C-alpha cells in the first residue's frame, strides 16, 4: 500500500495502513531516503516545464502541476510520470486520451475534497465523476491518493478507496497502476510492462 503526499510523513502516518510513501516536493534532494522521492514541477508555461524537467534526476518520480496548457505539454513529455492533483486543476477529454497514449498517470486525490465545502465541493464531486468516466472510457492510468500536505489531511487507504468507489472509480485498476508506477523506480528487475528479469531462476 502506497500513498502520494506532499510532506514528509512521520511514524503516525504508517499507522494508517501504508507501507510506503511517495513524497512530492519542489526540492526532492532534501527529502530523506526512507521515502520515495517525487519531483513536483510547478510551471507557468511549457518553456519553464522543460527547463525544470532537465533538473530531474533519474530516481525521482516526476509530477506536474499547472494550467491546462502546461498539463497538455506535460503529457507529451517522456520524463513526466504523473499529472498531480490540486484545487482548480483542469483536465479535458483530449488530455486524458493523450495521457493513455503516452502512459502518464492522472492523480485523483481526496485532499481537495477535504479543503472545500458547500457548493464548491459539490462541483468538485461532479467534475471528479466526469473525469473518472473519461478515464474509464480510455482506460487511462490513474492513481487514487490522499495528496495530503499535512498529517491531518491523510486518510486510511480503505477510506480513500471507498470514497472513490462511490464516485465510480475502478479501485483495483487504480491499485495496479500505482503499483506499476512505483515499481518503475523501486524494483531493479522491472524493465517495462511484460519484460522483467527473473533473478532466482536458472536455465
Amino acid at each position, binding site marked *: 500500500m502506497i500513498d502520494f503526499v506532499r510532506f514528509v510523513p512521520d511514524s503516525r502516518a504508517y499507522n494508517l495502513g501504508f507501507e510506503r510513501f511517495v513524497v512530492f516536493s519542489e526540492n526532492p534532494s532534501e527529502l530523506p531516503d526512507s521515502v520515495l522521492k517525487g519531483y513536483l514541477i510547478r510551471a507557468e508555461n511549457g518553456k519553464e516545464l522543460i527547463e525544470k524537467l532537465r533538473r530531474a534526476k*533519474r530516481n525521482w518520480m516526476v509530477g506536474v502541476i499547472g494550467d491546462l496548457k502546461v498539463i497538455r505539454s506535460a503529457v507529451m513529455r*517522456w520524463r513526466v*510520470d504523473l499529472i498531480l492533483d490540486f484545487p482548480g486543476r483542469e483536465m479535458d477529454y483530449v488530455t486524458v486520451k493523450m495521457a493513455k497514449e503516452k*502512459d502518464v498517470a492522472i492523480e485523483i486525490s481526496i485532499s481537495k475534497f477535504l479543503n472545500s465545502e458547500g457548493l464548491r465541493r459539490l462541483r468538485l464531486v461532479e467534475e471528479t465523476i466526469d473525469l473518472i468516466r473519461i478515464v474509464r472510457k480510455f482506460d487511462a492510468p490513474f492513481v487514487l491518493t490522499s495528496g495530503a500536505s499535512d498529517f491531518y489531511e491523510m486518510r486510511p487507504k480503505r477510506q480513500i478507496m471507498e470514497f472513490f468507489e462511490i464516485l465510480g472509480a475502478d479501485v483495483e485498476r487504480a491499485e495496479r497502476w500505482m503499483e506499476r508506477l512505483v515499481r*518503475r*523506480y523501486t524494483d531493479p528487475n522491472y*524493465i*517495462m*510492462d*511484460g*519484460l*522483467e*528479469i*527473473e*533473478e532466482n*531462476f*536458472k*536455465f
Partner: protein
Amino acid sequence: MRPEFVLAHEWIGLEVEVVESPNPCEIGIRGVVVDETMNTLRIKTEKGLKTVAKKGRTFRVKFAGKVLRVKGDLIAFRPEDRIKKGILMLKRAKGVWLW
C-alpha cells in the same frame, strides 16, 4: 549487452521456455529457437520441433547472462522488423533509460 535489448535482438539461437499460455499443453515447452515468423516461434525441444504462437504467451528466455520473462505480444514482429520496432518500443517505454 543490456537485457532490455532482447526486444530488438535476434531470437534464433536463444534458449526459451513457455511459461504462460492459454493452451496448457504448451506450458513447459523448452528448447532452442530454430526459426521464427511474425506470429510464431519454432522451438527445438527434446521431443522434436514445436511451433508456438507469440501472442498471448509469456516466455522465459536466457539473454545477456540473465533470465528474462517476456510477454510474447512484445516480440510479435517479423524478425527483420524487430530492430526498428523493438528500439522504438523501448524508447517510448517510461522508465527505460537507453542511454
